[in-house]
C-alpha cells in the first residue's frame, strides 16, 4: 500500500508518494532544480548542496537538500527562495573558484548569473568536483569497490588504494562514463608493449584507466575476434552470477550477441 501525501511546491499543491524526495516530486512536476552530485541510478548523496530548497514545516523554515529530503504531508517547498538561491549561488561561486575550467561548473554558474570567479578568492584549477559518482557507482552499481574517498577536509580526494594500481578494478569503465567532468580517462589499445609505467610487457590488447593506474588484459570476442571487455570483468561476472554462466557465453561482444 503506497501512502500519498499532499504538499505545496512553488505554490502548486501536488500529490506525491510518501518518502519520495522533494527533487523527485519537483521533477515530476516539471520544476527544474539544478544538481551536480545527483544521479538517478545512484542513492542520493546530498553533498554538492546545489539542489537546496527552502521548506516550511509547521512554524519552522529551513534550507535543505531536495535530493535527500523526504516528501511529507503539509510540506511547503520554495525552490528559488532568496535563502535557497543564496546558498546555490554561494556554492557555485566556491566551485568556480576551484574549478574554473570545468564545463558543468561554468554552465551552472552562468545559469545563476556568475561568469567570473570572485577576484577576492584564490583561484585554482582542479577538475574533480568530489561529487562521488564514480565511487558510488563502483560500489552500488558494479560492486567492485575499487576506489574510495581518502583523506579528509580540503585534501579529500577520490583515489585508488595507496594511490597505486586499483587492485579490485575490473575495467568496466562505469566511472569513466558517469563522471560529469571527464577527468577520469580510459583508453583501449590494440597492441601491448610497455605502455604504462610498470605495465606488463604484453602483446595482447589492453585497457588502460590512467586515473586509477589500471592496466588490464582485454578479451577477444569469440565471434568477431575484436577486443571488447577485460578479462577481469568476465571473471567478476562469473563470480557474481547467481546461476553459473558458461565462459563461452560471456566472451561474445554485444554487437555479435544481438
Amino acid at each position, binding site marked *: 500500500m503506497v501512502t500519498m501525501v499532499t504538499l505545496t511546491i512553488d505554490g502548486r499543491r501536488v500529490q506525491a508518494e510518501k518518502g519520495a524526495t522533494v527533487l523527485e516530486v519537483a521533477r515530476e512536476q516539471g520544476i527544474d532544480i539544478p544538481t551536480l552530485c545527483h544521479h538517478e541510478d545512484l542513492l542520493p548523496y546530498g553533498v554538492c*548542496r546545489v539542489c537546496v530548497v527552502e521548506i516550511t514545516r509547521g512554524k519552522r523554515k529551513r534550507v535543505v537538500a531536495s535530493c535527500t529530503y523526504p516528501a511529507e504531508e503539509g510540506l511547503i517547498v520554495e525552490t528559488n527562495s532568496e535563502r535557497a538561491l543564496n546558498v546555490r549561488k554561494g*556554492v557555485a561561486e*566556491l566551485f568556480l573558484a576551484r574549478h574554473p575550467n570545468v564545463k558543468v561548473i561554468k554552465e551552472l554558474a552562468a545559469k545563476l548569473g556568475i561568469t567570473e570567479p570572485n577576484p*577576492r*578568492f584564490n583561484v585554482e584549477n582542479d577538475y574533480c568536483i568530489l561529487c562521488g559518482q564514480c565511487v558510488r557507482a563502483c560500489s552500488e552499481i558494479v560492486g567492485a569497490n575499487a576506489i574510495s574517498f581518502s583523506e*579528509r577536509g580540503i585534501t579529500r580526494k577520490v583515489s585508488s588504494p595507496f594511490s597505486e594500481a586499483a587492485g579490485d578494478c575490473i575495467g568496466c569503465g562505469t566511472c569513466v562514463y558517469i563522471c560529469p567532468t571527464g577527468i577520469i580517462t580510459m583508453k583501449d589499445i590494440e597492441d601491448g608493449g610497455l605502455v604504462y609505467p610498470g605495465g606488463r610487457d604484453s602483446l595482447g590488447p589492453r585497457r588502460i584507466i590512467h586515473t586509477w593506474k589500471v592496466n588490464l588484459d582485454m578479451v577477444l570476442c569469440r565471434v568477431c575476434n575484436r577486443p571488447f571487455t577485460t578479462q577481469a570483468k568476465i571473471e567478476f561476472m562469473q563470480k557474481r552470477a547467481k546461476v553459473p554462466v558458461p565462459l563461452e557465453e560471456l566472451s561474445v561482444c554485444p554487437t555479435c550477441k544481438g
Partner: protein
Amino acid sequence: MKKLASAEHLESLRKEINKKRDPNLPCITICGGTGCQAYGCQRVVEGFKKEIEKQKLENRVTVRLTGCHGFCERGPLVVIHPKGTFYQQVKVEDIPEIVDKTILKGELVERLLFEDQAAKKKMLTEEEIPFYKKQMRLIFGNNGRIDPCSIEDYIALGGYAALSKALFSMKPEEIIGEVKKSGLRGRGGGGFPAGTKWESCRRAEENPKYLICNADEGDPGAYMDRSLLEGNPHSVLEGMIIGAFAIGSHDGYIYVRNEYPLAVKNATVAIEQAEQYGLLGKNIIGSGFDFSIKINRGGGAFVCGESSALFASIEGRIGEPRDKYIHATDKGLWDKPTTLNNVETWANVPLIVTRGAEWYSRIGTEGSKGTKIFSLVGKINNTGLVEVPMGITFREIIYEIGGGIPKNRTFKAVQTGGPSGGCLPEKFLDLPIDFDALTDAGSMMGSGGMIVMDDRTCMVDVARYFLAFLEEESCGKCTPCREGLKKMRAILEAICGGRGRQGDIELLERLSQVLVDGAICGLGNTAPNPVLTTIKYFRDEYEAHINQKRCPGGVCKALIKYSIDPEKCKACGACLKACTVEAVTGERKQPHVIDAKKCIKCGACYEACKFDAVVVS
C-alpha cells in the same frame, strides 16, 4: 563474587561495604585528574603509600587516588578525611611532614593550605575556599571521594540505588516522565530535552534499539566529560542502564575520543566490575532486564562528535555525517532507533531518579534546569572544572570562583561553546547563564568550555584560530564547509597578516550564511559563529586590522613591532641572550635595541625581560 540478584541483595552489600569502613579513620584522597597527573600525582600517591607503610599505619589509614577534584590550578591536591583538610600544590617532599603532623598529631601543615588573597586568610577545607563555595557539585562532587577503579567506593556512597529503584519500583514510561518533568536538556551542546528524545526512541517501532554515550568531547579547552568518565565512570554507567531500561535498548556503546586513554581504561574497568556484580549484562540485579555496553574508540576526528558521523565511525566507516532529515531516534546507528546523549547528561540521570524531578527542577532557570560543569580556562587565576547551577552569571564564575584575571589585566571576552560558539564581551558579564540566554546573545552553551580572554587577546586572531581548527577537522564532504571554510580562513589570515581589504567583513558575512544554511551538519552550520560574534561585538578590531593595519591586542605578528623602551631598559642583556635570530644589540650599560628587520617576533625577549622594557606595539 556472586552476582546481585535482587534489590535487597544490593542494599545488604552496601551495608556490608560501609560496615568495613570507619568514617572516623583518616582517609587520604589524592586527585588523579588529568591536570594533576601532569603535575605528577602518581608519585605523590606512591609517596604516601610508602610513608604509611613505613609508619606501620596500613590498618588505620587509607590512601585513595580519586577522580578529578576540579581545582586544577592548584594541583597536586590532597584532601584528608574525615576533617576534609585541603592541601594544595603538594610535593613528594611534603609527605613525611603531612603524615607526621596531620595524620598522627592532628596538626596542620600551614604552608600547604590555600590562602585567599582577598581575605588574607588560610582556608582549611574545600567548603571554605572561594573556588568551591559558589559551586553546586551535585554531579562532580563524588569525584573526590571515590577511586574510579573501585565499584565498592561507588556503592558505598549510594551508587546503583537509582538503578535499583528504576528497575523495581518504576515503569519505563514513568522514568521517561520523570526525566521530562525534570527539564533535563542535553549537556553535549545541543540542549535538546532528554526526556522527549527518550520518548521518541521508545515509541519507534523498529528493533533493536541502541543507546550511546557520546564521550568524543572535541571542543578544545573542554575537559569535563573526560574528568567525569575518568573520575566517576559508574555514575555514567548507571545513567545509561536506567536510560536503556526506559527506552527498551539492550545494546549500549560509549564512544570515547582517541586522545583519552585513561578514560577508556577506567570505563573498561568499571564495565568489567559492573558485569561481575550483575549490574550489567544479563538479568541485571535479578530484574530480568539485559543490557551490555561496549567501548568504541574514536580515531582522531572532531567531526565524530556529531551524531551521524559518530554512528558512521561505530559502523567502521569514515566519520562522514549525513543529512538529518530523519531523526536518529527513528533511524540512527545501523539505521535503527538510537538514543545518543552526552556523558554529563547520563551522569545527571541517577540523581533525577533518586531525588525526583520536582527537586531537580527547582535548580536552575525556567528553561534550563539543573547544574552545568564548565571548564574554566584561559586568562584566569583559578583554572579548573566548576559545577554551577544554571542561571549563575559570568561575573560570579569569573571573579568569585575563578579569582579574576591574572596580573590584574582587563577582562575582554569570554568564549563559550567551543568552535560552534561565540565570544561575549564585557556587557554580558551579568548575563544569567542558560541555554537560551547564550543562544540569544549569539553564542551557545556547547559542551561547557569557558575560555576567558583579556586585553592582550586579539579577537580577530581568535576567529582565525577557530576557522583554522574547523578547516582541519572538516570531513570535506559538502561544498559549503569544505570550500567555504578554506576561503573564510584565507580572508582572516589576510586580515591578520595586514592584507585585509574593504569588503572583507561583508564577504565573511555572506559566506557565513552559505555555511549556516547550506552545510550538512552542525560542524558546518555553526562554524561561522566565532566569526559572526567577533564581527558583531568587536567590529572595531576588524576595522583596525583592515583600515589601519593595527592589532589592538598586540598579537598579530605582521601588525606588531617589538621595541625596547630605553627608559626602562637596565642593559642586563637578558633579551640579547634570548633572541633566537641575533636581532638585539647593545653594549653593557647601554639601552639595548631591536633591529626590526631581523626580528621575527617570536617573543623570546618579551619573555626574558624582567623590567617590562620590551614593548609590543
